[in-house]
């Protein structure tokens, strides 16, 4: 059973989804709260979401501290090869990479804490740098998606007519391709040639290349729901009132429509981030994402695949981090969605 929390001053609609047993407390606490305060109040009550949010924050902080770990603890960079060097483990010297190319496993010491990869690089250092790269790509891609999708969705939904038709068909064209195939195709091309469009100049090895690719392929997944919401909003009285007051199209879009689709956009952010991190890992695994020698969780898994029978840590370690990051973002995102719009059932990907 749910109760309506009413309509905000800006016209944004929310429904609380608060169970009946909490109804009294909800009424008491909710009275006088704005929509976002109400959402925050709901989110605070969702302990699972908060716990996974904390896990994600921890992963993020660890990854941001990668240079500190590399410099002060492991004393090696993410791309430094130590193939023919040795390391002391349990009082005896061991090859970092042995004569047939097998790397050392976890030493549980500061050097090669999680072992080495086939190039004798410290897995722990690469894991943290890889996480930085994966999250950086994911965050930038999400920003690109959200900005482009919001603009396209609002413009298409409010304008209607030919412009709406053109934008919607363009979205359909992107939507028609499975994201991984489209991502691989774009990523593989751009990884060699880079991007050189007007003032945007990116080298093929730049982390921004996969970010742009991922950001673009996910635009329809957000733009279409935004457009759908705008189609409904543009017929509402407050929009009509704005028109009667003589407000221009751009102003109506910016000051009337945008705040009203804000909650939808916010709900999408963690979901898109999780999907972007996953797609980045997939593209990097296939060689179309983060370019070597830069690490990412996807490239680390790809590098470790052939060593599974003897050095499974090369796949397990980045795999676990990837699962942890994506799971935590997803659960936290679900919490955010429930807090902002408990009736919504948003899922990304296919």
């Amino acid at each position, binding site marked *: 059973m749910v109760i309506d929390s009413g309509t905000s001053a800006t016209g944004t609609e929310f429904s609380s989804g608060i169970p009946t047993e909490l109804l009294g407390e909800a009424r008491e606490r909710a009275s006088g709260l704005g929509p976002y305060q109400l959402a925050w109040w709901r989110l605070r009550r969702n302990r699972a979401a908060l716990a996974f949010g904390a896990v994600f924050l921890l992963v993020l902080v660890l990854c941001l501290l990668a240079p500190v770990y590399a410099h002060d603890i492991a004393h090696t960079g993410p*791309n430094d090869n130590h*193939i023919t060097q040795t390391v002391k483990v349990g009082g005896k010297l061991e090859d970092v*990479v042995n*004569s047939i190319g097998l790397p050392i496993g976890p030493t549980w010491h500061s050097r090669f804490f999680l072992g080495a990869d086939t190039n004798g690089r410290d897995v722990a250092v690469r894991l943290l740098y890889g996480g930085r790269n994966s999250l950086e790509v994911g965050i930038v891609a999400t920003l690109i998606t959200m900005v482009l999708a919001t603009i396209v969705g609002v413009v298409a939904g409010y304008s209607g007519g030919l412009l709406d038709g053109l934008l919607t068909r363009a979205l359909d064209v992107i939507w028609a391709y499975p994201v991984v195939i489209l991502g691989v195709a774009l990523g593989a091309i751009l990884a060699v040639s880079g991007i050189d469009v007007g003032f945007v100049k990116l080298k093929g090895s730049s982390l921004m290349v996969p970010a742009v690719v991922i950001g673009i392929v996910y635009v329809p997944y957000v733009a279409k729901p935004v457009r759908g919401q705008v189609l409904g909003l543009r017929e509402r009285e407050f929009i009509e009132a704005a028109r009667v007051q003589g407000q221009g199209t751009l102003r109506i879009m910016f000051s009337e429509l945008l705040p009203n689709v804000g909650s939808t956009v916010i709900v999408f952010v963690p979901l898109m981030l999780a999907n972007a991190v996953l797609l980045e890992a997939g593209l990097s695994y296939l060689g179309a994402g983060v*370019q*070597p020698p830069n690490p990412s969780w996807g490239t680390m898994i790809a590098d470790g695949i052939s060593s*599974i029978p003897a050095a499974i840590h090369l796949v397990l370690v980045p795999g676990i981090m990837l699962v942890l990051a994506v799971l935590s973002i997803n659960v936290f995102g679900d919490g955010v969605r429930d807090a902002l719009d408990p009736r919504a059932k948003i899922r990304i990907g296919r």
Partner: protein
Amino acid sequence: MRRLRSAGVLGSVLVLALAMSACGKSTKAGGTATVLFGTAPDSLDPGMAYTTQALEPDQTAYIPMLTYAHVAGTAGGKLIPGLATALPTISADGKTYTMTMRHGLVFSNGRPVKASNFTYAVERALKIPWGGSSFITDNVVGSEAFASGSAKSISGITADDATGQITIKLKAPYGAFDNVLAFPSFAPVPKGTPFKNEPTNPPPGVGPYKITNIVPNVSYQVVRNPYWAKEAIPGIPSGSLNTINAKISSNTTANALAVLGNSADVFDFADTIPPSILAQVPSRASGRYEKVIKNSTYYFFMNTKTKPFSSELARRAVIVGLDRNAIARLGSGFFTPACHLLPPGIIGHPTGPCPYGDPTKPELAKAQALVKESGMAGTPVTVWGEMRSPRRQFVDYYTSFLNQIGFKATEKIIADATYFPTIGNLKLNPQTGFADWNEDFPNPIDFYGILIAGDAILPTNNQNFSQVNDPVINAKVNTLGSLYKVPTSSLSSVASQWQALDEYTSKKAYTAVFGYASFPKLASNRLDFSAAVLHTVFGWDWLTFKLK
């Protein structure tokens, strides 16, 4: 083999079985073996086939006019007559080759073989076109006109069906031309065979076997050719097995495990045994596994036409500091550290030391000093590499190394299939990257004429990635050079000249050679391992396969 058959006639089956089990080295004729490949052949049609995965089966079904001795080691590089009665006679000016087709040969469809079938095969290979057709168009009179469609036949090749005599006229002497005649792509095929690639229905040929039941990218069979005149051609084994099943699966770990577990018989030498199972191979495959060196050179090219490697000091820095032991480990121990372009199995391989010190003892500090001295410190370098393992790992190491000695290196890794065409585009002008060369035939000109000679610099499909155009080298090895003209059969007479040239090339630091590859020879315990030859040219020589 014959001894066993006699025993079978004289004794009972039980006695035979006991005798066989008691004698570990006994082999039996007939039977079936399974070969596993990680990569599919480019085409089983000899008119198109150019990869080892294709040439291995084609060697059993398409015997060329000349071929190689079916023995292991460098002796396998010796040319012997195939369908020709003898090695060709070469005119004094080195421009005319004459040979005679054996009498009484028949194709696997029962039709007789004529001398003109050789001409037809050459024409077909040019029209398809086969990847190595330039061996003909660069050398044979009238072949370019035929390939371009402006002539109806190759004027430089004449064949007399009555006598079996074939005469080939070259534009200029080319010492390795008899090696060219040993490609299965120029093995006779019946007239009327379409001038197009027939990957699932390859034409009849002359050989102990024929290829059948082809399922593209999945499997095919090699079965006995009923028309093969047994032992009619000296030096060419008739093969012991009745059937060879070839299966293709990209999971090389599973392939290696299958051969280790004896559920398949032969592991493709061109595939890499993953390090993760390599450790168990010597113990699990005792007596049926070894590393075999084939003639190949692995190196990093350094573009001499652009910074920083236009500086000889910068190139020397790379050669001095490169840790070849590290690369050998990345290659799972399948690389022998080296510095010279010509590998040991090729005539002309220098016997002297490397000009810049022991290749197994890198001198990082010296390399850093050389980079500083060259004035190229801090120069941005793009390192090109392939995706597949361990080649990408080589490039990862190399990039890290270049940064260590003072350059500002970044990587550009691209798909395997497009790598060499991409870096072979002269417009791209790549600075440095991975390269390798596996012999087409055991002749130093196959290395120098393609990788180092000035006239080998081409606008597209360039293989002279370092863009070396050195007058000293050119005077010896380009189309007008003296060594270019020396026939393969006389190579030993100029071995010292080749050695001197290769030492000169190493001294000029044109390429950072890091090693010669060895390959895994791994078979099941059903197969007679000592009899099975991993041939220097053919790869696995299927005609030597026998069951124990």
